[in-house]
């Protein structure tokens, strides 16, 4: 019971956001970030000593005690491992990732030979691909040939689901790479140096907060999507992967990354401001360490907690964003597949074939919930404020 309560107290809004004079709307990005640990008033040594990089910078007392007790990082991991909901979610997520990566090649070897409309007799390597249409077999229920049935174009639902899953996870990964890279770089620079970088970041985040993130993504992918599709299809090496209507995933990733990194940068900045005032930074400075080395060796490792928590929360938002854009017809287009696109395709025949919409919706629900629960678990484990 006590644990249950802890989870929800973590959502208390932090009024210090207003006091610092930041733009007050992290919620706009659809993230659960009001309670971001960045603005925690207490800066316990736990933060400072949360990662392997702390070895040289932590006080001798902590080094001593870390021999008897697990390190703060280890303790956090231990708590995370005890969180049943998060562990179940993690295994579900790992299963889904494996399914998306290895499911399609395996699936294309399963199944007998069936007659096709146009190509004579075809094996599973053909009809178990996500873009093979079999119009005479459209909107079927589950059968030996199509375990989850077909959609209105006679495409295999299961193959499309796995492909859609792959797209969702790819976009999430791409966005997170940009989000963490750009967010940490700008955030650390702004927090460490202040000055014009800080002002610029503050103004830019204000602007991004005023601009609902998804609307920006809609604009960007709507305007540049079709051209990108033509462009990427013509590229020599990656064309075959990115063509086929999937090219917009690059645009979608860029759009979602553009609207999500300022949030990360702002959190990192807050954390950097706190770390900068700690004595080990002062000590490093006095001993003549160069700024760049202080940032790289002493500050960045200590940002681990906040970055892992914020980015996990952001992944859920990204997956929702990608599905939403495809749902509106602005993301991945036919013959490519995406969970959002599948939902939109099924909506027209909802009364006759509800499963065509329900399957992708359920998968999306599962993946979003799993990532949110993992994020909650990570926050409970790594945010010192929510720990006893």
């Amino acid at each position: 019971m006590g644990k249950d309560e802890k989870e929800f107290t973590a959502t208390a809004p932090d009024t210090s956001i207003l006091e610092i004079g930041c733009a007050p709307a992290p919620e706009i990005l659809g993230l659960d970030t009001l309670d971001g640990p960045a603005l925690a008033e207490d800066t316990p040594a736990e933060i400072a000593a949360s990662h392997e990089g702390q070895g040289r910078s932590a006080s001798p007392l902590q080094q001593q005690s870390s021999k008897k007790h697990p390190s703060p990082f280890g303790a956090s991991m231990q708590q995370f491992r005890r969180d049943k909901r998060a562990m179940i979610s993690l295994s579900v997520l790992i299963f889904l990732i494996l399914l998306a990566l290895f499911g399609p090649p395996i699936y294309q070897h399963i199944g007998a030979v069936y007659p096709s409309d146009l190509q004579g007799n075809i094996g599973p390597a053909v009809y178990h691909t996500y873009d093979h249409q079999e119009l005479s077999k459209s909107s079927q229920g589950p059968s030996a040939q199509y375990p989850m049935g077909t959609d209105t174009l006679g495409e295999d639902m299961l193959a499309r689901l796995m492909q859609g899953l792959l797209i969702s996870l790819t976009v999430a990964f791409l966005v997170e790479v940009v989000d963490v890279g750009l967010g940490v770089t700008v955030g650390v620079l702004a927090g460490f140096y202040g000055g014009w970088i800080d002002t610029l970041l503050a103004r830019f985040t204000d602007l991004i907060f005023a601009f609902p993130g998804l609307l920006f993504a809609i604009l960007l992918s709507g305007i540049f999507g079709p051209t990108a599709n033509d462009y990427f299809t013509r590229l020599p090496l990656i064309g075959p992967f990115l063509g086929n209507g999937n090219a917009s995933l690059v645009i979608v990733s860029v759009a979602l990354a553009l609207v999500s990194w300022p949030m990360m940068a702002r959190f990192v900045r807050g954390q950097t401001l706190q770390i900068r005032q700690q004595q080990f930074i002062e000590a490093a400075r006095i001993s003549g360490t160069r700024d760049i080395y202080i940032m790289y060796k002493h500050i960045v490792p200590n940002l681990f907690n906040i970055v892992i928590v914020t980015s996990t929360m952001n992944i859920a938002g990204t997956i929702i964003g990608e599905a939403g854009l495809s749902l509106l017809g602005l993301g991945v287009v036919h013959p490519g597949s995406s969970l959002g696109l599948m939902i939109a395709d099924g909506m027209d025949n909802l009364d006759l074939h509800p499963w065509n919409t329900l399957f992708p919706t359920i998968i999306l629900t599962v993946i979003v919930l799993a990532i949110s629960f993992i994020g909650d678990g990570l926050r409970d484990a790594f945010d010192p404020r929510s720990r006893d």
Partner: protein
Amino acid sequence: MTRFLVKRLIGLFFILLGVTFITFILGYFAPGDPIKESMGDHFNPVLWQQLRHSYGFDLPWYQQYLAFLVRLSHFDLGTSFHPQQRAVWDILKDGVPISVELSLWGTIVMLMMGIPLGIITALKANTWIDTLSMGASLILYALPSFILAVFVQVLVLWIDKSGVGWPVSGWGTPWSYDWSNIQYKIVPILTYGLAGYAYYARLTRTTMLDVLRQDYVRTARAKGLHENIVIYRHALRNAVIPLITAIGLLLGLLVTGSFFIENIFSIPGIANITVAAVSQRNYPVIQATTIMVAIGVVVGNLFSDVLYGIVDPRIKSE
């Protein structure tokens, strides 16, 4: 307070300037020629030049932007590409009331569900009521509105399999509430509320629990006040402060949330106009809706800041 307001208003002006610049520049650098596309097979170079000139496309970008700003300051949103020469206002005026109606009722439903639930669960903390309701809102909180909308629609269709033919798409006449209109409106509005209530329920519960632990609540109880007075007069008033700010802050989320609800339920609101405009590259309409949404969000933030200062006078002095 005045200084704070002036400062915020100046900031707001620059933010809006930035928003107009982004929307303008996106349209300017966008690939394709919207005029050529809208002419289709009837392409005529002379007419094309004339149209380009009448839209001002033959000017350099800063002049176009300046002209755009000047028109905006006169509340002139320009003319649409598609259908040609129709005023943007004219296109928007059908959609805006519908969207406003949906968000207004949806927000009311959201607050009516979220705040009482939050209070109840805080009072019954750690009982089965609390566990059940918070478990549900945890799930609803994580899910985006379009997933809920799909589930709701499937559910309605399933319940109504042999029945009266309950409509699951469309909106009816805005701002009129006879039975057939209510039939259209009630499902999307409830979905909207359902998609957003969890945030309020969780927030209310947390702040309520915080306040209930305060000394003055114990004092109020100790001096023998009726429990209702303790809760509604002493506790709730203080718990309500973060809720007020949250309403303003959530505006952006609400706008995009209603985007998907409008899309799934085929409601001809501003979202569908925007999406249609994006796929037709109808930039004047896109610019207009983007700026309108941004103004809504910025003004909402300002509003919640001001309200915050009124509810909690300590903020004002800072």
